[in-house]
Every structure is written in C-alpha cells, then in structure tokens.
C-alpha cells in the first residue's frame, strides 16, 4: 500500500483540486485556505475552494455532467458532503471509491464512532472520508435570558415567555431541517422509524405530533415564524445584534470561536438538550468523473492528519471534536490535542456524550417539503 500511495503522490503533483465546499463561514474559508497552503507546500497540489451556498449545487453539477456524458473531465474534484447529498450521489453511482483505505492517515480514524462509518444511517463504505464532527447545540445570550429550555417539549412555553427571541434557519438549510428532525425525535412515539427510509413509515402519523408542537411554538418565533434567517451564520448575526436570544447551532464550539473572533458577545453560553441531540460527521467525497482524483486524495489524507485535525480542533481557528482516535496517535501527536486552549463557552464534555444518530436522509427532504406546504403563505 505504501507503494501505491507513493504513486498517488506522484500523480497528484501539479494537479489543481477544485474543492466544492459550502461557504458562508469565514473561519472555515480561512481554514480551507490554510489547508491549501499546506498541500501546496508538501505535495505540490493547488487547492481551489469553489464556494457554494448549498452543497446541493455541487451535487446537481455532477448529476448534470453525468447527464451530458462528461464522464472523465468533471469540474468537481472534492466535495464537502454529508447526509442527503452523499446519499443522492452514492445512490446514482456518481462517487469514486472506495478510496479511504488508500489514505495513510485513515488508519488514525476513530472507527468505534458509528457516525464515522454511517452517514445519516447510510453506510459510508469508503466512498467518503471523515474530517469534522458536529452536534446540535443551542447557543443563548446569558445577558438577556437566564433559563433556556432543556427539552423540545419545553420550547413552546419558553417561547411564549420570550416572544420573538428564538428562531432557526429556513428549512431549505440543513440546520433548519435538523432542528425539525431533533423535535421529531423527541415528539414521535417511536423514534426508531426515523432510522429507516421515510417510505417505510406512515409520514402523516409519525409527524402529527411535530406539527401540533410547531403550531404552538410558531406564533412566538422571531417575526412570528413568517420569515427565517437564510443560514446558520445569518442567524448568528441576529444573536450578535440582540435581535434574538437563542439559536440552534451544529457546532458545539461555534460560540467559543465566534467570541474569539469578536462575532458574539462574551455573555453567550452553549447548552445541549437533556436527552441528547443529533450529531453527525462531515465528510469529503470525490466525484466519479474528477480528473484530479490523486490530488483530491492527497487533500483528503491531509485533512485527516493530526496537524490538520488539531488546527481544526483549536477554537482560535475552527474548534470542534476530532474524528481521530486519540489512542491511535503517538504521544507527541496526542499532545497537540490535549494542549488545545480551553474555553468557557464550550459545553461540558459529558453533555456532548449523548449523541442521537441522524435520521435516514429521505426524512430531511420530506420534512422540508411538508413544512413548506404547511407554512408558506
């Protein structure tokens, strides 16, 4: 395998990798720019981030190329992907792989963590390489509110006491639909159905308690639940300005990093719901028609390096749990993680232990569609 990695490194030399990544989080853009500098220095690979407003743009791009018969000269080399978008490409056989076993650093990945092996219940099977971990948390401004709801059931009553002070991103955004999924987990009698494709369940029956709950919450949302921020960062601006007091986030260390960057007041705090919240892993995948697969693998491998993971875990740059298994690292490598700066804005480690698996990807779209149908004027 060492020999084959060497040949991949040789092939990658001089390649330009177009990395389609959701953009809108400036720290993430800066991190990707740093990755670009590193792979350019070590491996002569040029990394170009193609900023996306939604990952689905890259997915439709690859599908359109397949439709046009563009089977070898695609425009996308690497996609930051997970959940429904991964499922959409894998189902059509539009991903290259399995490739993760060829990456030397993949040996360091924590394979005991199911979210590194199953992406929204769909087996990864080596077709995408993990690089980030995420979990749903709630960020609030303790200067304005002392008590926040610690269960989904408590949200309507809390919102009634704090009208207009909570919102979540529009459901076309993954964070918006994740909030609905979280609520569905807590409200539906048998959450196990969420792990199977939506067509296997009686959608109306499963979601009835969700809509009843939402109808009680909606009048007390920001803008009376008629308008929603476009994305997580847009929602964060509202919290920064004091337009809202609480918001969901998919990054447990987002608040800490935002405080560091001067984007949130120092009075914000982060909580996890008492019975746990949805968590997942972010991956990178290579489209079947990428002309720069070797370069893309070099980038994927670098993203798994202790150096890259430690920088991603540092709240000064990004912050967040690593996908690596610290037990597999050398003491020196491990020290990079244990010496990371601590932060008063990060939730207790114990609170983050209760991770609920993501529902099957088919739920996200059905939920978003049903929500649009019910609540679009």
């Amino acid at each position, binding site marked *: 395998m060492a020999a084959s990695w060497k040949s991949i490194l040789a092939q990658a030399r001089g390649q330009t990798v*177009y990395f*389609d990544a959701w*953009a*809108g*989080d*400036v720290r993430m*853009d*800066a991190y990707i*720019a740093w990755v670009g500098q590193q792979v350019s220095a070590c491996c002569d690979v040029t990394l*170009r981030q*193609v*900023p*996306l*407003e*939604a990952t*689905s*743009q*890259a997915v*439709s*791009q690859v*599908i*359109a*190329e397949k*439709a*046009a*018969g*563009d089977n070898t*000269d695609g*425009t996308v080399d690497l996609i930051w992907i997970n959940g*429904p*978008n991964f499922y*959409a490409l894998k189902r059509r056989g539009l991903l290259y792989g399995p490739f993760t076993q060829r990456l030397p650093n993949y040996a360091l990945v924590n394979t005991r963590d199911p979210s590194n092996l199953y992406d929204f219940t769909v087996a990864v099977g080596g077709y995408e390489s993990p690089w980030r971990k995420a979990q749903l948390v709630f960020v609030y401004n303790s200067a304005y509110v002392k008590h926040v709801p610690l269960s989904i059931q408590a949200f309507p009553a809390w919102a009634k006491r704090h009208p*207009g002070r909570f919102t979540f991103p*529009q459901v076309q955004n993954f964070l918006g639909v994740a909030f609905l999924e979280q609520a569905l987990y807590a409200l539906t009698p048998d959450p196990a159905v969420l792990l199977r494709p939506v067509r296997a369940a009686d959608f109306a029956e499963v979601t009835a308690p969700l809509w009843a709950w939402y109808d009680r919450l909606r009048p007390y949302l920001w*803008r009376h639940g*008629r*308008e*929603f*921020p*476009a*994305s*997580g*960062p*847009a*929602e*964060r*601006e509202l919290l*920064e*300005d*004091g*337009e809202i007091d609480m918001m969901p986030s998919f990054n447990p260390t987002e608040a800490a990093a935002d405080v560091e*960057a*001067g*984007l949130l*007041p120092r009075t914000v705090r982060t909580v996890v719901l008492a019975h746990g919240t949805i968590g997942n892993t972010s991956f990178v995948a290579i489209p079947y028609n990428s002309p720069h697969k070797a370069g893309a693998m070099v980038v994927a491998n670098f993203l798994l390096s202790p150096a890259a993971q430690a920088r991603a875990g540092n709240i000064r740059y990004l912050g967040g749990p690593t996908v690596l298994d610290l037990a597999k690292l050398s003491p020196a490598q491990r020290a990079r993680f244990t010496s990371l700066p601590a932060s008063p804005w990060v939730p207790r480690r114990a609170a983050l232990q209760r991770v609920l698996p993501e529902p099957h990807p088919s739920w996200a*779209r059905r939920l978003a569609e049903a929500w*649009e149908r019910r*609540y*679009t*004027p």
Partner: protein
Amino acid sequence: MTRAAARAASHRLAPLRARSRSWLRCAPLITVALFLAPIVAGLLGTLLPAFGWLPAIGGREFTLGPWARLFSAPGIGAAIALTVGTGLVATVLSVVLVFGLCAQLHGRTPGRAGRGLMAPILAAPHAAMAIGLGFLIAPSGWVVRLLSPWLTGWHQPPDIATVQDPYGIALTLGLLVKEVPYLLLMTITALGQVSAARQLEAAATLGYGRTVAWLKLILPQIYPQIRLPIYAVLAYALSVVDMSLILGPGNPPTLSVLALRWFTAPDIRMYFPAAAAALLQLAIVLASILLWRSGETVIAHLGRRWIAQGARRTRLAPLTRIAAAAVAGLAGLGLASLIDLGVWSVADGWPFPQLLPKHWSAHTWTRQFSMVAWPLETTLIVAVLASALALLLVLGCLENEQRSGRAATLRALWLLYVPLLVPQIAFLFGAQVLLTVVHLEGSLIAVIWSHLLFVLPYVFLCLAEPWRSLDARYARTALCLGTPPRRVFLRIKLPLLLRPILVAVAIGVAVSVDQYLPTLLVGAGRVVTLTTEAVALASGGDRRITGVFALLQSLIPLAAYALAIGLPARLQFHRRQAGGET
C-alpha cells in the same frame, strides 16, 4: 454640415476606401452572431425542458408536467404577486420621480457637486448597494441606531421586518436607489439632444409655469429616447436575482430566485419546473412591457387633451417638489449605504445600539487579503477582457457604419437591447446546458462571453453618439491628403475620441462587475468574482468581511471612471509638451 451631407460626401470618396474593409463588413455580423444566436439558443434550451424535453436527464416526451409542478408549488401565487408588484412599483416610481425631479429642476443645473454625488451610486454594483442598504435599514442598522434608544426606547433591535419583508418593500427601495440615478442619467442625456432651454424660455414668454412647460413641451419630445432604458429598468426590476436574494423575502422569494433555487436543487428533476418558472418569468416581463406600452398610449391620449386645454399652471407642481425631495432622499440612502459598507469593513466590535463601532481596525482588510486576491483577479480579468472585446466590436460596427454610409436602424437598436429586456434567468439556464455540451461551462471564456452580452449594449450606446457626431471634416481632410482609412481611424478618430472611448470602457467594466447570475450559472460556481463572493457572504457571516468584498466591488467601477476621466487629460498634457498633434 448636416450628417446626411457628410455621408453623401463620404460616398463620393468611396474609391479612397481601402480593401482592408472586408473584415469590417463582418463586424456587425460577428456582433450579432456572438450576441443573438446564443440568446435564442439559450431560450430554446429553457423552452424545451419547460415542456418536459431534456433527454440527458430523462425527459423524452413533451408534457405539461413541469407547469403543473410549478403552479402547485407552495407559495407560487405569492411569489408571482411579489415579483410583479415589486417590479412594477419600482419602475413606475422611478419614472415618476425622475420626471418629477426634471420638471422641478430643469433649467437650474444640478451642479458639479450633485453629479459627483451621483457617480458612486451609479458605479456601485447592484449587489453591493443591496448589501449596504441591508446593513443600513436592518432592525439593527444605522437608521434604527440613530434613533435608539433615546427616541425609540429600544435597547435591543425591534422584531420588525425592515429587510426581507414579505411585501418586498426593502427590495423595491433597493431598486429605486439604483434605478432612479440611471434613468436620471438617461433623461439628462436625452435632454441634451433637444434644445430644451430655448423652448422653455419660449414657453415662459407664453405664460407657462416651468413645471407645466417641462411636462407639456419637453417630456413628449424626450420620451421616445428614454423608452428603451425604461423598458430595460422594467425588465431588470421584474427579474433581478442578486438584489432579491439580499433584500427580498425568502418564504416565498421572487419568481427568479425560486427558479434558481429549483435549478440548483439536489433533485435533478426540479430542473423541469425551474425551466417553466424561468419561462413564466419571461412571459411576465413581456406582458409587463406590453402593459407599459398600452399605458403609454393612454397617457399620451390624455396628455394631448391636457396640452390642448392650454392651462398655464398645474396642481402637479407641489408633487414635483416632493419628487425632488424623494430623489435627494434616495441619493442620501445610496451614499449612506456605501459608507456603511466602509464602516463595517473597519469595525472592531459594533454592538447595538451604538452609533459607531467601539474600536476601529484595518484587521479585516489585512487578514482577508489572501481570500480577496483570487476573486479580485478574476473580476478584473473578466471585466477588462469583456470590455475590451466589446469595444473592439463596437468600434468595428461604428467604423463600418461610417465607411458604408449605413447608420444603424431603430430595429438594430432594439436588437442591441435584447439582452437587457429578456430576463437573464430565461436564457442562462439553456445556455448552461449548451455550454456543458461544448465543454465550455465553468470556463473563463464562457463567463467573459456571458458578460459581453450585457457589456456590449452599454458600450455601444455610450460610444455611438460621440462617434457619429465627430466632425466628419477631420477624416475627410486626411483622406483627401491620401491617408489610408486605417490610419485615419488609428491616428485621427481614436485620439480625438479617446475620452468617450475610455468612458465607454469604464462603463463596460462597471456593467461586468455588476453581473451576478451570468457569473454564477455560466461559471458553474468555479469562476469566483467579488460579486459572487459578496452575494454569498451577504447571506450571513461576518459583516466586516462582507463589507470588504462589497466595498472593493464598488471601488473597481469608480476607479475605472476616475481613470477614464483622468487619463486623457494627462495624455493630452504630454502631447502638448511634445508639441504633437491636437
């Protein structure tokens, strides 16, 4: 000498015209080919999928399915109403305000200061202006900060939708801020072509008030000349994407945003209703132009009766004062928006309700430099090449027109306006499919071409008048002295027309920097400019960085104008020093 006589004279000089004319004769043909053929093909590429035909993704039969899907989409009625409402209201208000201001002010020159203040608003791209205006009028923006908490009592921003409101008021306001100065410029240009001052004087001696004289005497003369610009504003306001994304509501959005959303949905089958929506957008624009045209007829009919009645005074006079005040207010909003961008870009902590940032810092600029460099470079390359190409084609067409003695007809002018009247989204969808087939999508060349579609009309409109009105005797004298036409073109016409040429290029650069949807769709997301970055960042993130991108985006056209105006002066200075021509 009249232009006709000049043309006749140039005919008699025909033998002097060199053989090298052959490529010139092709210039109009090349222009039309580069220009109209792709638009027609792009429209076709949208039309077929709108009726279910796109074999590449499994559409192999003609069906009305896409339309059924379109009209059953949640909120589609509201989206159409929003689109038509904002587009028509913004255009009607723009036209009324501009006419009102001109009726109120005509004869009294707006002055250098006034024009200087308008320049940044005209130059700023729509996206940057929308971002700045969004900052300004947001519940946490400058306007509310100015009044809080001393007047409003607000220590937190109010829960009022002042941007992205469901009625599209913020979007309409954004359109007004940009379109009023544009129409004003077009009107002032048209006014220069009728001897307005003298006619107004004559009217005054007959006892007509200034306002009523302008409305009865001048407006009917200039309207035909600004009809096309007004239609362009109407088409733009109805179908704009970037401003709608930034200032318009999201649930539901305007029709063009809805079409874009479906077009980029992970489910490729959404392409069919997206194409139908794009076609519906085209139908709405065409219907609105027809509606406007019939409105013109009605108003002209009523207006003739009003003129014939011979009243010397009008009750409209106070209204024109309101219009003038409103235009001044809009200009103030526009300038404040641009300043707000600048303040955010150097703010270091700016909590509500403080009027100014707690600390100032250039950190955002220095730290973002590496992220700005690539989009900035792409923006400049595309803008300069698209403008240079447009200039080449326009000069070819104009020179050919003079040598062949055939002036462009009104119909040709309409052709030129096609890209400005057909909604971008209606033909860019189809164009993207075509580009995929020829493997050009996502390439810089394709993006430059797509910008050319919008740059070329403006360069032509800007250059045609000065070119045609250049005194023909210069060229004729040189020709008679035996100078070949190529040298006449290079050594006489180009230097004499240097300033309008540079201004035309600067306008081309401004138009190119403005383009969001062509860059996004034709560039397949791979060609990243300041504009696509600014719009992406505007959806949320760090307002300091959004401010950097939007401000830079506005500075490029301004710098281009400054160069266009400053450069010829310097060149001429050197020439005089060298004792050369002119």
